[in-house]
């Protein structure tokens, strides 16, 4: 067994209650750091604190999409029977976190610039495109009967997603040039001291939370499948 695979096996052996406790602890720590420890932004004041969640949730959503695509690749490549469900759950978590990115981004836009939606915010527009794309993934999945074909089609579409991320990013960057000649320049926050610590803790908290949710959903879905199988046997 290769090293990353062994690592993954080890990760899935961490018990769910332990994971839940870890994510609770981490999220609480992140909340405390964000609201009580991190200094106010000199330019935007208190409202800038949403940045710690917005950015870390966005990164987590990408991680979920990439994880889902990786499982899709495993399905197509190695025909691992568990990979299809794992890919679906990964994408599902990605969509949930993606919706949160849209929500937090929109709140940030309202506070900073007075509009709930800004087409000049590249990340927000990209997440809208991805959100539409992955909603179509669910339409595709729910429009197919359970079986190898559904697994294959969903896997291929999930793989398209990770190609679409950089392509769309590039396209949206290009679109700025003719749709919004004036780009908001926001001097990036200086990453030092408590700001860096707070961001890192928030980031780890979100990743662990996403992984916990992934495991919970996976366990539920597997139980559901087994129950359905048992019912079929008894009927």
């Amino acid at each position, binding site marked *: 067994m290769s090293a990353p695979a062994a690592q993954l096996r080890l990760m899935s052996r961490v018990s769910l209650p332990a994971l839940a406790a870890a994510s609770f602890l981490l999220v609480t720590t992140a909340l405390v750091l964000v609201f009580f420890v991190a200094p106010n932004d000199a330019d935007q004041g208190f409202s800038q604190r949403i940045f710690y969640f917005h950015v870390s949730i966005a990164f987590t959503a990408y991680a979920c999409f990439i994880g889902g695509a990786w499982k899709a690749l495993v399905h*197509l490549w190695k025909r691992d029977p568990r990979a299809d469900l794992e890919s679906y759950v990964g994408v599902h978590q990605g969509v949930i976190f993606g919706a949160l990115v849209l929500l937090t981004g929109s709140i940030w836009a309202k506070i900073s610039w007075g509009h709930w939606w800004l087409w000049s915010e590249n990340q927000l527009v990209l997440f809208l*495109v*991805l959100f*539409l*794309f992955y*909603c*179509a993934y669910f*339409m*595709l999945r729910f*429009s*197919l*009967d359970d*079986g*190898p*074909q559904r697994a*294959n*089609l969903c*896997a*291929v*579409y999930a*793989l*398209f997603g990770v*190609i*679409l991320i950089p*392509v*769309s990013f*590039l*396209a*949206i960057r*290009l*679109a700025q*040039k*003719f749709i919004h000649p004036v780009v908001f320049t926001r001097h990036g926050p200086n990453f030092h001291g408590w700001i860096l610590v707070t961001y890192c803790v928030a980031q780890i908290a979100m990743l662990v939370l996403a992984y916990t949710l992934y495991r919970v959903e996976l366990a539920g879905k597997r139980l559901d499948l087994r129950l359905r199988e048992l019912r079929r046997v008894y009927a």
Partner: protein
Amino acid sequence: MNYAADVRALARKDLLLELRARDTLPAMLLFVVAVFVVFHFALPAHSSSLAARGLLWVAIVFTALLGLGRAFVPEREQRTLDALVLAPADRSAIWVAKTIATLAFLAAAEVVALPLFALFFHGLDGATIGAFALADVGICAVGTFVGAMAVATRARDLLLPLLFLPLAIPIVIGGVGASVVAAPARYLAFLALYDLLFAFVCWAAFEYVVAE
């Protein structure tokens, strides 16, 4: 038979079928003209030529969708898709041939639509026509691929626009960019990159769409 001969035979079959049945192309032509008329009334007087160019891209993408929706439906209805998959040829040849056929229909529709646009609204420059040539490849490559996915589902044609439009957003951005800016090279390069990337992925992954 080698790969090129397979592709040629399959593409010839689709083109011949269209030539005899005349299902798709007249519908696409009628649709694009109707859309232009709708646009004329949707655009207020004195709106800029840039707005009209943007709408031209919308018209072409939707016209393409109309053709793409038909690409795999007859195969499914006549149950010939199974036969194609069982044929002793590389499965990706089916995708290449279908892409060529839909590309031919879309190009034929544009040969009528683009001069008509110039007549009804504003003239077109070389960059716009080049952008359409590049975008057509991407639209047909990706559209044929998701079209094959959509016919396998219960929802059929309903699903195709939902699957296709998020993937087509980069094409529209590149195309509209090339049509409206003074230096379009960057946008044309982006369209070419999109074509190469997605054509390769579709070609490599088509096997999984049709085979179980």
